[in-house]
């Protein structure tokens, strides 16, 4: 088991964070650390805007960084479960990214 980092880009809406945290508890995964901030400047994630054909306003979307220690084999399942949350726009681990439901084989976030 090694510590892994997940990055999420999600809608900054009330209750959205609770869904992510709740999911970790519900599925039996532990959160080692959690950092959330609303994204002011979206330049770094311009490719998401291009992909979705949309322009995000400042603070409309949040970035979550979660550190968790899990079996390697569970990592894919965690990613997929997070990707299923309706408000999650993108989620990545070290090797892959789900961008609005579509899997890419690299960490884009």
């Amino acid at each position, binding site marked *: 088991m090694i510590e892994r980092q997940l990055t999420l880009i999600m809608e900054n809406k009330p209750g959205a964070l609770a869904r992510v945290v709740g999911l970790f508890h519900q599925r039996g995964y532990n959160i080692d650390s959690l950092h959330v901030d609303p994204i002011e400047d979206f330049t770094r994630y311009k490719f998401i805007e291009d992909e979705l054909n949309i322009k995000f306003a400042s603070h409309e979307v949040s970035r979550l960084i979660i550190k968790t220690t899990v079996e390697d084999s569970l990592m*894919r399942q965690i990613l997929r479960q997070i990707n299923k949350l*309706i408000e999650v726009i993108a989620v990545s681990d070290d090797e892959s990214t789900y961008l609005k439901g579509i899997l890419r084989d690299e960490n884009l976030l």
Partner: protein
Amino acid sequence: MKLAGNDMLIQSLINEGVEYIFGYPGGAALHIYDSIFKQKEMQHILVRHEQGATHAADGYARATGKPGVVMVTSGPGATNAITGIATAFMDSIPMIVISGQVQSHLIGTDAFQETDMIGISRPIVKHSFTVDHQKNIPQIVKEAFHIATSGRQGPVVIDIPKDITNPDDLFDYEYPSEINIRSYNPPIEPELSQAERVVNAIMDSKKPVIYAGGGTISSNASDELRELNSYIDVPVTNTLMGLGVYPATDERFLGMLGMHGTYQANMAMHNADLILAIGARFDDRITNTPEKFAPKAKIVHFDVDHSSVSKIIEADIAVFGQVKNSLQLINSIIKERLDELDKDKFDNWHKQIAEWKKLHGLNHQMYKEESDANPILPQAAVQHIYHASHGKAFVTSDVGQHQMFAAQYYHFDEPRKWINSGGLGTMGFGLPSAMGVKLAYPDEEVICITGEGSIQMCIQELSTCSQYKLPIKIFNINNLSLGMVKQWQDMNYEGRHSSISYEDSLPDFKSLVESYGHIGIKITKNSDLKAGIEKAFAIKDKLVFVDIYVDPNEHVYPMLVAPNGSLKDMWLSKGSKT
């Protein structure tokens, strides 16, 4: 058009084409109920307990494929709905649950009938919304219906504070015609390359099995599944949730698989070299010990939900997309390559399966061997119900032995006819879900096969059935005990029957249902069984409750040996296993 929040909510439901709202009023929902009163397009069905509302909406959804709609008040109304929401969630059933909430300024103050509905329901909904302003109502309702009915379907909660439904505050109303949720994009079309790999795998296999589940029904892919098998002609098994998606009376049908699956279905899965899992999720009632599951099989998994694939059993080939679209693509490829498929290569496999079936298959003729020297067998009761309803009825069920007997012995030839709580296993589901089905299909025969334990968990809905004149046929497989629990105690606890008997406290169901204005029939001996069941079906305009006293010592077999067993390890009768 300017509308108040309460009217906006109701108008939005009308715009969605809702026919029925199943619900129960209360303080926080009163403005909404006033709007319901003022309109004619939808009918509100007043249940007797909010759990009944959720199961009725759920039954409606399972039978029609359209989302069921539930309306409850805050606090106890909302918490009473929880079991039904969880039931729908576990079986991926589209449902919209609207819960009243205390006024916005009271939220967080422990106000009268305040409960954090969004928090309580979070792990058992596909998504949920709090309405923060009237102007967002149309958009939220539109999104809720879209989310509930697309991708992997499921329940969506809309929690709406009372002040937002205030009749005096008017706002512009326009119902959106299209919807695009920028963070939500469930797969629809499969990848061609994956589909081609699947077809190659079929061409290469000698012992294939199709294992189709509830997702095939949700995706309305029964026709595509049947078409696929008209080309490849291989054995098909269905999960408890999938029954009816492939015709049970077809020669290639193996019966249900899993915990109480047929011998031939479980053996075929265990020995297969290729498993085509279609809208099924390798639940633990299916796999037995996952490490021992189908050791020789290549696994192909069709699913709309990424997180279902390789969750329990690693898939060799995954096809993401709506099952219907995926099967259409597979069919179009196979049609082109039919000459490559040598169907004779499956002959030995079919022969082997026929042998298994002959050896330990279910006895569907038990109803022919009855005598008053013996108690009524629950299996035979189901067989009579099957014949008397010509195999065409909608059948809802509860949870326990009676449910398994219904699944094993009522042959479903069409999807959406078998309505039961597979994932959560909710006792109390049968009667209210039958109400939802009967409202959707008033001219069809709707049966509830239940047990004396389960029926008492929502028996108050007998009153709803008289109010709305729902002539359901209820068959109570009465074994005087929590039979399934008792079976486990017989098998795993040396027959220590802890808390499974009501002693002499059961009601006289016949007089009970008659007090609601229904007809009761009590059957205690074999010689009355056939005639009693046929009499129930002959009564067209009334709810008939048939209380059938069956052998209290009967067990459901086959039953998978656990823990550490594989799919080939089954109990076949008391004291004998494979």
